[in-house]
């Protein structure tokens, strides 16, 4: 990796950090649990790297490690989005009271 590529990656990292801080601090404590499952599901984008490791046919060790990584990341992707949706479905506003 050249130093330009590295600096460029650092730009992305720094901007993501600032953006992340802004976006996340607007999530109310009410939604902190779905926030944790959502961010975990999103960071399971590392599946993308695992797919190449498992499918590149580089060598036996990499393929096996890649397979385990794909499995683990997929659990988080599928499970994470599903559980976040399940939680978010539950938050309802108050219905008009019948008094």
């Amino acid at each position, binding site marked *: 990796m050249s*130093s330009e*590529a590295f600096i460029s*990656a650092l730009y992305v990292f720094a901007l*993501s*950090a600032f*953006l*992340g*801080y802004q976006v*996340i601090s*607007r*999530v109310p*404590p*009410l*939604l*902190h649990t779905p*926030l*944790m*499952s*959502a961010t*975990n*599901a*999103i*960071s*399971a*984008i*590392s*599946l*993308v*790297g*695992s797919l*190449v*490791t*498992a*499918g*590149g*046919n*580089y060598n036996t*060790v*990499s393929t096996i490690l*890649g397979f*385990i*990584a794909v*499995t*683990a990341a*997929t*659990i*988080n992707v599928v*499970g994470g*989005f*599903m559980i976040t*949706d*399940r*939680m978010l*479905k*539950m*938050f*309802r*506003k108050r*219905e008009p*009271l019948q008094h």
Partner: protein
Amino acid sequence: MSYFSEFTYLAASILFIFGLKALSHPDTARRGMNLAALGMLLAIIGTLVRHEIVRYDWIIAGLVIGSIIGAAMAIWMPMTAMPERTALSHAFGALAAALVGISEYYRHGAELGTFKMTAIGFEVMFGGITVTGSVMAFAKLRELVRGAPITYKGQNIFNISLFILTAAIFIYLVFVPAASVLFYMMVGLAFLFGVLLVLPIGAADMPVVMSLMNSYAGLASAATGFALSNNVLIIAGTLDGFSGFILSILMCRAMNRSINNVLFGAFGAETSAAVTQNDGVMRELSAEDVAVQMAYARQVVFVPGYGMATAQAQHAVRELADLLEARGVSVKYAIHPVAGRMPGHMNVLLAEANVPYSLLYELEQINPEFATTDVAVVIGANDVVNPDARDNPKSPIAGMPILDVDKAQSVVVLKRGKGKGFSGLENPLFFKPNAGLLYGDAKISLTALVQAVQQAD
């Protein structure tokens, strides 16, 4: 072909950010998450068509098995098990990142440039710590391991030395990537460190540990992004990393302890701290007494804690609240930020029980109201309502923001028995003249209250 791939990654990045932005309100949250999921799908498709991938057998196997397990967990795990599920998800995420890092090293070893080696190093270290740390957290939450902190003499020194050793090996490896024995040693040390880090942390401090693990799992993904020169990984990993980090800070502030104190302070172990000497009696109440108080109250505030989760009492609370509201009583819920075992734990439990979120109040909003509250009902919460935090500067929890339930006209504490609760601290609230205890399992007590209120006039 690789342009297609890169464009899907860009689309995914944008959709992820929109998704997280939409989490700012329950009404927009679901739609936002659907967008994020779409982004993920695009990125996966964009990867599968890459020319580097030449065999699909293991990929398909992994995707299928992973989907089944993930879906099963999402559908069947009860809301009360959310902390456990979250801990496991951190372990899985970190595992994926760590394994990719190990594979990259295995493949390229000595040829790795300085930047790549640094990235891979962070990847496997964050990954390793988080895998074992999260499994340890899971074990503590499930009570497979003692919830009380496990300490031994010289523990902090040992941990710090281990950390310095690992860091030293890492630095050496950055300059001499060929030293493969050292690399695998470093990986092993990272895994070990995860266990040792979480071992001395008490179950009550789990919200901080969970947030931290959330952060590290994200940072492991971000490091993977650096190693693979993949921007969407860096973005998603950093968003996750900072989210967890912000939550950790919030949790620490809510306990008024520094992160160092939480991680290395072995809070809750038997220490001889100055606690308020409680002479006085703990008044025992009956369900009928409490029901009458509540039935004729103007305002009742429920204060849920981890005990409500373990008793699975959230539905019973809502039943009781509905009854009271039908009688014209104003019902509110006071949610302390560290109530439960993870951030937002109480909120999802109550949402599951169909409590409208407009009745859930944060600490700053609800504290002023206790003075005009007739009955405050504490359900399985202890430290978060302990007046020592406010009044006794020598208490181990001094300075921690608490819910001022003792300011209510009357306080009813639902408690399983006369023991000291999860944190082991005496709570002077129980001895106050306006407080009384309703003993028994919270769900049973609340059901009894429902019946008693129904019979009130």
